[in-house]
């Protein structure tokens, strides 16, 4: 029987700073057999350990279409994530996974896609965005709407520029607090509704960000005519095991780590109100 709780060593091959507290880590399993068997889908997460410190669930931000490595974008917010930030290229992390369900992919083919993210929420979406970009002709028009607190809090700024250059793809940025020379919008991400047309026709909205942002964006999308089934989002809960055993992420009879983290608005509406999922 496989011991699902055992993590495997992976070497950090590259570290890219994203913001003052967030970095992207490109890692590779030491054991090629483990690397080959780590078959993940867009939107899944992994449990990352620093031995002696602990474990944290982190979304896999790389796209399954780009093989040979894994990428994680990690914000330093506590014990484990602070410790990860102290590591250097060549150091080792311990990883197990992949866990959770995934963003739809085949079901999105032939549709207009709206990717809407806040802050570090762009990390899990990036996995799907790059998978879509690697199969660009299968999809219609794409809009990426991204908001952050300040321009310095934006992740993947270079990649946002590259996505912009792809045919039939728009990137709209907004910040709560601008700095000198900021050329894009100001305000929360729903402010972008004033700047660009958001059409429900043959479209799906895919959201990731803090609960408050998801809540308001879902409301805006509904107002714009999106059906609950065409609004897809990821939920976050405190997690320990990642495999439906420790109980921490339970909501109703579901476990966010196994039944999620990706849900449609229709599913989210069925969660008991008192669970405050959003």
């Amino acid at each position, binding site marked *: 029987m496989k011991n*699902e709780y055992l*993590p495997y060593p992976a070497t950090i091959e590259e570290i890219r700073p994203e913001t003052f507290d967030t970095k992207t880590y490109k890692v590779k399993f030491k054991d090629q057999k483990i690397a080959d068997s780590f078959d993940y889908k867009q939107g899944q997460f992994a449990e990352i350990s620093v*031995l*002696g410190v602990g474990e944290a669930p982190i979304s896999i931000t790389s796209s399954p279409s780009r093989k040979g490595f894994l990428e994680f974008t990690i914000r330093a917010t506590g014990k484990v994530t602070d410790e990860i930030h102290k590591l250097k290229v060549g150091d080792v992390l311990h990883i197990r996974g992949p866990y959770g369900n995934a963003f739809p992919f085949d079901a999105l083919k032939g549709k207009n896609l709206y990717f809407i993210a806040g802050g570090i929420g762009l990390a899990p979406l990036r996995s799907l965005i790059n998978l879509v970009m690697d199969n660009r002709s299968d999809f219609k028009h794409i809009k990426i709407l991204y908001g952050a607190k300040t321009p310095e809090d934006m992740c993947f700024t270079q990649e946002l520029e590259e996505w912009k250059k792809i045919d039939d793809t728009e990137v709209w940025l907004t910040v709560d607090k601008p700095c000198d020379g900021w050329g894009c919008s100001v305000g929360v991400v729903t402010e972008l509704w004033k700047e660009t047309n958001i059409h429900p026709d043959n479209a799906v909205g895919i959201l990731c960000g803090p609960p408050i942002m998801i809540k308001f964006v879902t409301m805006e999308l509904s107002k714009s005519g999106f059906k609950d089934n065409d609004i897809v989002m990821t939920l976050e809960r405190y997690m320990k095991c990642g495999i439906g055993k420790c*109980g921490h992420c339970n909501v109703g009879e579901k476990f966010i780590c196994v039944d999620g983290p990706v849900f449609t608005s229709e599913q989210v509406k069925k969660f008991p109100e*008192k669970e405050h999922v959003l």
Partner: protein
Amino acid sequence: MAKTINKNQINSLLKEVEKEYKAFAPIKGPEGDVLFKLLCDGEVALGSEDVVISPKDIFFPQWETMFKFKDGQIEETCESAPVFLFGIRPCDLKGLLFADEFFKRDIEDKYYLSKIEGRFIVTIGCIKPPRKDACFCTSTDSGPFAKDGYDLQLVDVGESYLIEVGSKKGEEFIAKHAKFFTDSDADTAKTKEDAAKAVELKVDFKKALDLMADDKFTPQEIYERIGERCLYCGGCLYTCPTCTCFNVFDNATDGKGERVRNWDGCILSGYTREASGHNPRTEKWIRAARRYEHKLKHDCKVTEKSGCTGCGRCLSSCPVNIGMSKFIQEITEKRRTM
């Protein structure tokens, strides 16, 4: 023909069992309390003693090392020795079978499952309820005698125990240890009937499950009272045979140490706190609701079985008199009991 074993033969039989199994039984400690322990830890107690903690901790220990590590190298520490469980109560059997199913579901939990491999279970029916005012197993249909799920079941018929065989393994065991057993035509119907009558606490469990099955049914006022009264000691969760939540952490110095899991519970305030500080269950009543809804509603949705075994430990271990039976009385009889 049915078999019996004389009570004074039990210790000799268990001596034989110990050669093959890691054998656990209710053991009376020097202070007089009874807990599931290894046979070598003391004297077996098969009367109506209250075994305060359910036998779940044999397979899901309160504190368990998952693996050790040193200088980045991981060493798996996963125990497995066939366990012989002697003298567990029918409610606890139901609890164990429930936990087995949970740890097998979806992704398997090796720590738990390796410990139940080859397990042999001998239940003992309760002639008198061990937690006198708290046991309500006749309402949950889990006692005072088990109907299935055991390998052997003991029925106290005075000088001896009549043996009920519940599995092929049980049959083989009797054949193998034939010298301890004698034929008997004792009738146990009256014993069982009297035992069921001795369980005085009765609740309308079916009505409770029906009420709870309705998503709109939220007895918030009752949850609020429980939330206010509860001391958050965790006693009810730790003694419950079907509570399986755990926390995971590293216990280490200088990169050398162990990853550990230990019991945790949904009623505790840190249980759902996220790294951002955001906690979706800050209000006490929501945490109280979680516990009752999990056992009486969510478990039924997923497994068609409720997570309550009627063992009554939540009530008997609670310093402030909160318990599942009280909650059920409140919602079904519409009267205050807490």
